[in-house]
């Protein structure tokens, strides 16, 4: 029988759920670029004080600031989605007979991430 197959086309535009998913995936691009910038910085550090200072100055440029602001937002979004999806990658977590609800796992993860962030910021600020 002659069935009709509908084309996928720009499927991600047809449902907000898919748009948010694509944004999550796209955030990886920004995270990769950010990681590369850090690697460059590390390399410049190994080359000496002057190259490193020049790299730091480059970071202060408007384009760089814009990129980093965007990257921060996307990393936060990515982290949030990562934690939201974390329970789905784990078998049921139990404490004795009680099954820990997914929400508790997400909240624990987010709190741990926030705590680490605060700790690192404090360390960075005081040293």
């Amino acid at each position: 029988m002659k069935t009709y197959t509908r084309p996928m086309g720009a499927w991600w535009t047809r449902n907000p759920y898919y748009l948010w998913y694509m944004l999550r995936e796209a955030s990886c691009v920004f995270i990769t670029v950010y990681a590369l910038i850090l690697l460059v910085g590390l390399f410049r550090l190994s080359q000496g004080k002057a190259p490193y200072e020049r790299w730091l100055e480059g970071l202060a440029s408007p384009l760089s600031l814009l990129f980093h602001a965007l990257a921060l937002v996307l990393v936060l979004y990515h982290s949030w989605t990562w934690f939201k999806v974390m329970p789905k990658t784990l078998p049921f977590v139990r404490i004795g007979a009680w099954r820990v609800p997914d929400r508790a796992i997400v909240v624990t993860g987010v709190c741990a991430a926030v705590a680490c962030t605060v700790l690192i910021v404090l360390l960075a600020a005081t040293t």
Partner: protein
Amino acid sequence: MRKIEIQCLRYHPVTDAAPRWQTYEVPFTDDMSVLQGLQHVKDHLDGSLTFRWSCRMAICGSCGMMVNGEPKLSCETFLRDLYPGPVRVEALNHFPIVRDLVIEQSDFLEKLESVKPYLIAEEASPGKTFLQTPRQMEDYYQYSKCINCLLCYAACPQYGLNDKFTGPAALALLHRYNADSRDAGKAERMELVNAEDGVWGCTLVGYCSEVCPKEVDPARAINQNKINSTKDYFLRFFKK
């Protein structure tokens, strides 16, 4: 009685080259579902409108369709919530259309069969049941609630892009048996789990679990098995 417009994507395999929209005006009461709206059309306006349905209580899985772009069971989607409309109804996404709102489901049935969805176990003592505590049942029970409605396949873009992907419901059913304490067939099902189109075809979009009307959570069933698959991959070097 209030009226609401229902737009249906029509298609006839013999007379149509491509699907087309047709609009119906349906009088409705507050307790009417989209399915009942479609039944009104079929009974009184246009008997050629074709759709699957059976139990009317969201347990048989027949009436899945796209309602305003989301995969839904038409028997538990209510016109009062979609008012003033119009309501756009089309066949479930990612499946070929046989006619109007009816999809070709044989691909799913093949996938279902391929996961060996039965208890592979030692013989039980004659006349005796296996023992299974409520806690052991909890490990697999939610995955056994799948009504095979295919909303998850309509939600999954990976299946839409590649119909060789085993897909959410089939993989959830596979996990249901693997996680059943009475089953001993994990090894037999591993090959399917490990395949490119097995659990690795999933990129955790997660929309499948969102749309599942029975809270089966196929995304979890699949992604838990990524760990199992990885373990199996590395441990095989030690198995020999």
